């Protein structure tokens, strides 16, 4: 069972993400709707040192109490979460924000379209089925 953490405060988006991703076998989805809460969870997991909070994070940027960037920073600041794949999923598409996201260590930057289900399908396919760096010699 692999776990996807969705940090998203719009209930409709959260519901769509949970529903679509849960359709795939072996995927478990958790939704957190508050930036500050997400940061607390990361810090707690780091202190306990047992397991990462998730295997993949889908992160919105406009969040209550702490922004998506702050969440991303706290993920990258934690030793055990440093290699955790984080995908930004947002409405903001300004070059400055995209740049900032990658600078802070995002693995991918996706826009919330009106066909979020398709986007999530690609995310699943890439991150859970394809994303192994191929060896030079087969």
């Amino acid at each position, binding site marked *: 069972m692999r776990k996807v953490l969705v940090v998203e*405060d*719009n209930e*409709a*988006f959260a*519901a*769509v993400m949970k*529903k679509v991703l849960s359709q795939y076998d072996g995927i478990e989805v958790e939704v957190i709707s508050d930036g500050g809460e997400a940061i607390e969870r990361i810090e707690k997991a780091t202190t306990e040192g047992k397991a990462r909070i998730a295997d993949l994070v889908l992160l919105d940027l406009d969040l*209550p109490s702490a922004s998506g960037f702050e969440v991303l920073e706290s993920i990258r600041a934690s030793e055990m979460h440093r290699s955790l794949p984080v995908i930004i999923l947002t409405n903001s598409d300004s070059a400055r924000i995209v740049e900032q996201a990658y600078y802070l260590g995002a693995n991918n930057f996706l826009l*919330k379209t009106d066909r979020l*289900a398709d986007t999530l399908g690609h995310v699943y396919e890439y991150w859970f089925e394809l994303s192994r760096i191929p060896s030079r010699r087969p």
Partner: protein
Amino acid sequence: MTRIFFRGDLEAGDHEGAFKASVPVRVFAYYVFLGAAASLSGLGTFKFAMLPILLTTLGETITLAVMYPWAKRSQSIAYCYLLVEILAQTLIFWFMGPFRIIAAFVVYIFQLMNTGIRLTRVGYFATANVFLLFYGGLIALENTGTIRTFHDNNLQLDMSQRYANIPIGLIVMNLAAYFVSSFDGFLNEKTVALAAANVRLEERRREVVEANRALEVTNQEMADLQKRTDEFISAVGHDLKSPLSAICNTVPLYEEAAQRGGRDEAHGYLKMIERNARKAFEMAVALQEAFRSAMSPEPFARVDLGEVLRSLESEIRVGLERQGIELRVASDLPTVHAQPEKLTHVLRNLLTNAIKYAGGVENPWIEVGGTTRDAEVIFFVRDNGPGIPREHHERIFKMFHRLSDTPEQGPEGKGVGLAVVKMIVEKHDGRIWVQSEPGAGTTFWVALPSAGRGMDV
């Protein structure tokens, strides 16, 4: 002295261009007279006089070209210039034989019209007679045998004939001075008129340049306004996208649930769709209101901030009384050049905000004050409310900042108020900022240029 010989309305030697242009003309003129003199007086005289005339003409031209820039700067050098000029002329005519008086007459006119040193009538007569003094001196020197006679050996003029040239010269030269000074007066009038026309032209040019600059400023203002509007629309577009795309994405979920017969689930999705639709609708309404209150045209006027506050008193009294807030208004509030309705909107918004967040504090108060400093009118609305954390200071001025995606909106409204206030202040070329710490109250500062801007849009 200067007034007698030099004309005051035009500076000595301020026709440098005319002088420079005249040099080749004058040299050419000398040779024309030279040719005339040669053909009239016979080849012998011409051959005899040729070299000294050439040398003198060359020397005079060079001397004047060198002295001219100096003569421009100092009146005494201008006198020297005139003397050298007269001496040189006299020497040239001296070599011209019996026609020298006629030549002197013509060349002298030429000379005075072209030198650019403007003389008074007295000045013209004085120079003409100095000219004659030199001329008479030369004749005297020749007749006493001090200097050799070059030019009229073969003419065999006797003493009396030579001296007779002096009274003739006296008449001719003074006549010449009279004509030249009359003509020069006429010329001077024209020059003065031309100078006046030039001044007017320069004024017109300056006006046009000024108008162009004003136009540039207006263009810049329009560009700024356009930029702000673009940013605003882009930000709003972004904010509207969120609930709308949430709706688009929830509809398939609803359909699927409805088909499956999961009534409760389908109903839940429908509620989400409704809430997001409502959010988008409220944004659109708020947007329309914001545009109406910030962007509608209104003329600028002198606005007394104290008067604005008095006009708002009845609106805010209920809010103040309900929460037991004390309103302290400074007695010496400044006046400002602004759009009255817009400025009222700014103050109303800042005050109602302060009232809205005053809850939960003991002895709440709101203070309004202001002052004129440098080129700015600065005023503030201060409260002792809960304060705003530093990280939100920038965010509160953004459109829809309160419309986080949580469905509960709370009492804060749609978060357009301060964004509109900021738009209005910026349209006045002003600045707005907040000073606040949690627990230490909040102060909103507004600075507007005291002269204001003229654009009535």
